[in-house]
């Protein structure tokens, strides 16, 4: 399952970041988004716009197609 499969408001554990673009992955890891963390999908913007997620108490916004590279469980 990937992050964008979650219903808004639902939580999951990040299991796989290896499919992501290298630069983006680095930035997300720096922000505290890594494997084993709990992630909550807060909301999605219309027309395939970005998604807002909460990881360890902070909100981060990233694009949907990139969120779709994050494996969760």
């Amino acid at each position, binding site marked *: 399952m990937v992050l964008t499969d979650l219903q808004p408001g639902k939580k999951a554990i990040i299991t796989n970041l*290896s499919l992501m*673009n290298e*630069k*983006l992955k*680095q*930035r*997300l*890891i*720096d*922000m*505290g988004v*890594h494997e084993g963390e709990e992630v909550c999908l*807060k*909301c*999605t*913007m*219309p*027309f*395939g*716009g*970005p998604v*807002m997620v909460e990881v*360890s*108490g*902070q*909100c*981060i*916004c*990233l*694009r949907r197609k*990139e969120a779709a590279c994050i494996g969760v469980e």
Partner: protein
Amino acid sequence: MSQIALFGNPNTGKTSLFNNLTGSYEYVGNWSGVTVEKKVGILRNQKARVVDLPGIYSLHPLSRDEGVATDFLLTEPFSAILNIVDASQLKRNLHLTIQLLEFGKPLVIALNMIDVAERHGMKIDINKISECFHVPVIPVVARSGKGVEELVDVMTAPQQYEQRFTLSYGEAIEAAIEKIVCCLPEPNGISKRWLALQFLEGNERVCEYLQGQIDMKPLVSIREMVEENIRLIQPTGSIRQSIHHIREMFIADVLKQTITIAREKAYTWTEKIDAIVTNKYLGIPIFLLFMYIMFMLTFDWLGSPLADLLDQFFSGPLTNMLSRLLSALGASVFLKELILNGIVAGVGGVLVFVPQIFILFLFISFLEDSGYMARVAMVMDRLMESIGLNGKAFIPMIIGFGCNVPGVMAARTIEQPRERLLTILLLPLMSCSARLPVYALFVGAFFKSHQALVVFSLYILGIVVALLLAKLFSTTLLKNEHSVFVIELPPYRMPQLLTLWRSTWDKGKGFVRKAGTFIFGGSVAIWLLSYVGPGGLNVSMDDSFLAAIGGVLAPILAPLGFGTWQAGASLITGFLAKEVVVSTMNIIYHAKDADTLQGLMAHYFTPLSAFSFMAFVLLYVPCLATVATIRKETASNKWMFFSIGYALCIAYIIAFSIYEGGKLLGFS
């Protein structure tokens, strides 16, 4: 004087702390990437210099502003590090702390936002953190300045802590560090272990730094060997990951000892506001509504009446008083004319718009300080993506509404170089506050009943042109590499009145200062040019040098609807600063106040040509200061000339279409 460097994650209050430490005022806001250049100040007790640096998540720079921080570490002398840490985000912040500790310089931690952490239900044992890292930890409230005195005392205390923090990274990596350390040149203040670790992690700046000094081949082969060893154990692993993991474990251990969760986190009002302003359907309408209110307040509801009052004062009491004073002093006619028709008309004509500009700046400051800015980037990202940019590019654009110069600088936070360049090139199309007096003058004369709407349409025109050109450039000139977008959404904060005022004043004072320099100088020069001509002094305006210069442009401008030498002359002088267009017109048309000027202009412009003129002023060449900043930020003359050239072309095309198209549709 020794130098202390201020490091920390983005949006943790570095600049607020800096301001409180030094008693100065630097620009603050509630979004990541407010500070893009280092700023130097002197500690209140005069004992050391403090350097404020852009916020970073780690020492590996991904964007230009982050590069400034890493470069500082590598190349500049300093005696100690002040690391500001957000208590409510300890886990993430401490990664940077570890990397800074490994650098080997004395370090003090300033623990900020404890109040926020407590509201989240966390209790933090400050002494315990200090024990874990062997460095002093001082709790502070950066916004109010609480705890700053103690911090200053600790930082400038004569006997500084011996820095003795080391973290062991396991056999394979430690062995590699040892080997690399042997290859490194003699120490020059930078810890060899730190260099080795950063090299192993793949920090590009550190690689570049080492390349200049030693042969990199042995180092690279050591790194490859470790990388292979790690992959033998874990196929998807890397050195970077292992190092990160070990730090993560250490931090988790520290947090376990120091933090007690008192209660579960409550539903915060940030979440409540976000539920509305980043709502799927309401997000964009709310943003547009906010902008609309901003324009209505600036032009209709509040700004215009205030500007009128000021105008009455300048044209009435002030002019009369000066005139009487000059007569009493026995000033010559020449001097009297220069002061009253040149300086008062030119500078006063621009200063009249101060209230409107301050209202606009107040709104922009509110946007920056409340935390809404990052949400705007999020709401706009989908649109920006379709034209080859990302939502983050929208932040410099909003700042550009105030002034293009800081807007161009703010583009540093954009990670991808091409997206950054594109943003810089298109930024001058954002209608800055200097263009506002031009609009205010013309809408007052020709569009009395729809002032805000007409001005709003010009702002939108600027944005639309920028977006279309972005699409054009990103598919032709600057084919985009993979575009990335990720942004942190900070919690909302009620802006403090004082901060809001300071931030507004800080932006506005540039405008006032310009009135005293560029506009003052420009007004004197223009008046002189209009006063002298080939025929001698005090010629009729139409025979002056100014008319001759402006006249060259008039035939070229005729198809746009304003083929007069007056328009030509004011556009040339507008390159200095766009407000000068208004000063020039005030002087040329010899108007006592804005009302007379507006009456006079009806002879030279029609509503249609006035709109065409405003559109031309909006789009044609960026002002002198912006051009200089573009040159500096792109480090290229080519792009600087490009930004001037394309703007002239597009301004001509659009003004032409507006005027000729409007005529076809039956407007006049």
